[in-house]
């Protein structure tokens, strides 16, 4: 079942003519000519679509919070700042099929009553920005953007905004600050963007994938979307698969397939690269807890784990993780967990905006301490120190970057403490090139 990527490999799908030939812009026709904004919102609510950027908050509910004071403009801002390590699905979708996003932007803007909308794309994807701008121009030329779209009386201007290289701008209030031409420091909430967002006007910020899905929902109805998936994990999800698998790439899965199928089926990742075995997975982007092979495949109660919001988080952080952004990073037995954790700790240290002391100082501490462990200069007390620092960051910052920085460190120690201890106790072995700790009796699952 493919909703977003059904035609993504069709040659020329980036052009409006080919896109329309494959059913493109029917949702705009239907929504603007036959539905009211409230009816569109109602379908999105019924679909159960949840925010695909990582938080998983119901999209329809987020829309319903939008304040609508008379005479004040409202804005839809698309979050295309995709920067969570392991995640490259929005990059892929916008690059291959820009009109999929633009169509969703028109439908969603109509539902929200926004007459100006922005797509905030991370600056590193400048070539994607050019692709989007070209596609937007095509949409203007065909009367799908601008004044009185398709004679419906609805006006919409759509612009692309470039970021400048800052992970924090994926946090919605930091993104709005950035869009106002400022440093990306997250705002205190409340007020939420739905009340005071871009230029203090009511604003909805949604991820690329969430917005893109709204066209299918308009065409086929919210109920049809809700029939795909399991329970509260409705619809399809783009998963960015990277690491030691045979077929890295972006896959659109119906939510609810097993993790085992996703890793080993030829339809998806195609299994672990030849001659190697699964050691660990980071299932939802760098910030979610890493899980060892046996825990990612099976829940603590012995059930096969599913690719859903609920099943991946089953067992809490003791034995579970999160679906997050769908950044699925697979590691085989050659992976040094300490080194991998170091790259994540260094990432969050680099990307902390510096506004809140626990995050600004704590990410630096974690980076420094893991680095000295990796370099064979670790101290016995360092592991507990890391756990302590992570605990003191978590929940004590304005935005979730603090949590995102703390979780990968505390989870790596929770599940791979012996690897950290080995680095500290045997620096002469651990600092050999390519050295990886082998747990006594370890037989990594196939």
């Amino acid at each position, binding site marked *: 079942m493919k909703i977003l990527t059904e035609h993504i490999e069709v040659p020329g799908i980036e052009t409006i003519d080919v896109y329309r030939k494959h059913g493109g812009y029917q949702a705009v026709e239907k929504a603007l000519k036959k539905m009211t904004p409230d009816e569109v919102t109602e379908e999105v609510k019924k679909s159960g679509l949840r925010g695909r950027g990582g938080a998983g908050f119901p999209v329809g509910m987020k829309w319903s919070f939008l304040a609508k004071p008379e005479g004040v403009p409202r804005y839809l801002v698309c979050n295309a700042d995709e920067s969570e*390590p*392991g995640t490259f699905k929005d990059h892929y979708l916008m690059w291959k099929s820009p009109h999929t996003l633009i169509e969703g932007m028109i439908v969603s803007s109509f539902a929200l009553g926004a007459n100006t909308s922005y797509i905030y794309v991370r600056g*590193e994807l400048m070539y994607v920005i050019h692709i989007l701008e070209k596609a937007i121009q095509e949409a203007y030329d065909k009367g799908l953007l601008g004044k009185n779209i398709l004679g419906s009386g609805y006006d919409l201007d759509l612009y692309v905004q470039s970021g400048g290289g800052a992970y924090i701008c994926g946090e919605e209030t930091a993104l709005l600050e950035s869009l106002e031409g400022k440093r990306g420091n997250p705002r205190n909430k409340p007020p939420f963007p739905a009340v005071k967002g871009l230029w203090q006007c009511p604003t909805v910020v949604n991820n690329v994938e969430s917005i893109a899905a709204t066209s299918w929902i308009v065409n086929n109805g919210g109920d049809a979307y809700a029939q795909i998936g399991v329970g509260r994990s409705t619809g399809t999800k783009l998963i960015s698969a990277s690491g030691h698998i045979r077929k890295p790439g972006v896959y659109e899965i119906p939510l609810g397939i097993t993790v085992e199928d996703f890793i080993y089926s030829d339809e998806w990742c195609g299994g672990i690269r030849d001659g190697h075995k699964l050691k660990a997975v980071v299932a939802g982007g*760098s910030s979610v807890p890493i899980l060892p092979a046996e825990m990612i495949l099976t829940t603590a109660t012995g059930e096969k784990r599913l690719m859903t919001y609920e099943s991946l988080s089953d067992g809490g952080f003791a034995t579970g993780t999160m679906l997050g952004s769908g950044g699925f990073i697979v590691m085989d037995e050659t992976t040094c967990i300490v080194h991998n954790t170091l790259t994540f700790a260094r990432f969050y240290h680099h990307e902390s905006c510096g506004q809140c002391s626990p995050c600004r100082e704590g990410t630096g501490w974690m980076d420094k301490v893991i680095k000295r462990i990796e370099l064979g200069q670790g101290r016995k007390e360092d592991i507990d120190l890391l756990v302590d620092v992570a605990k003191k960051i978590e929940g004590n910052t304005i935005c979730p970057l603090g949590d995102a920085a703390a979780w990968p460190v505390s989870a790596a120690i929770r599940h791979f403490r012996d690897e950290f201890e080995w680095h500290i106790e045997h620096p002469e072995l651990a600092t050999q090139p390519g050295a990886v700790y082998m747990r006594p009796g370890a037989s990594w699952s196939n």
Partner: protein
Amino acid sequence: MEGKNNIVFPAETLDLVKKIIARYPEGKQKSALLPILHVAQAEWKWCSSEVMDYVASLLSIKPIEVYEVASFYTMFHLEPVGEHVIEYCRTGPCCLMGGVEVYDHLKKRLGVETGGTSADGKFTVKEVECLAACGWGPVFQIREKFYMHLTKEKVDQIIDELGK
């Protein structure tokens, strides 16, 4: 409007700047800052204080409002750079694919450390965080172009090609 040291956009770039400013409501022209800094960096390769002062004058904002932004976002070079800036991803997924070894090879080949510029002024090497191309790693970026599935041999080819 003209900056110091003949820092001024060509006429057609000024038209682009005007178009960018028109994307925002009246009085919200500061929103154009990041897009225009990208345009300025494409023109002058790096953001000197003269360039930033000029951008401030175009947007009718204070120079400090440009400095604080340019120094926050890692894409803006605040010091002179070589002809080609190689921005090399150093984050986990690329490392899993052998990114560290390829990076070491790149630095050795150019005789530079991170942040350095090769003796011939052709290449500056910078480490960057995740470029959202994890399934195609290891990756680096030069200007708008992504170079993916890097190996030592591929790096040599790219350097040979661009170093001509």
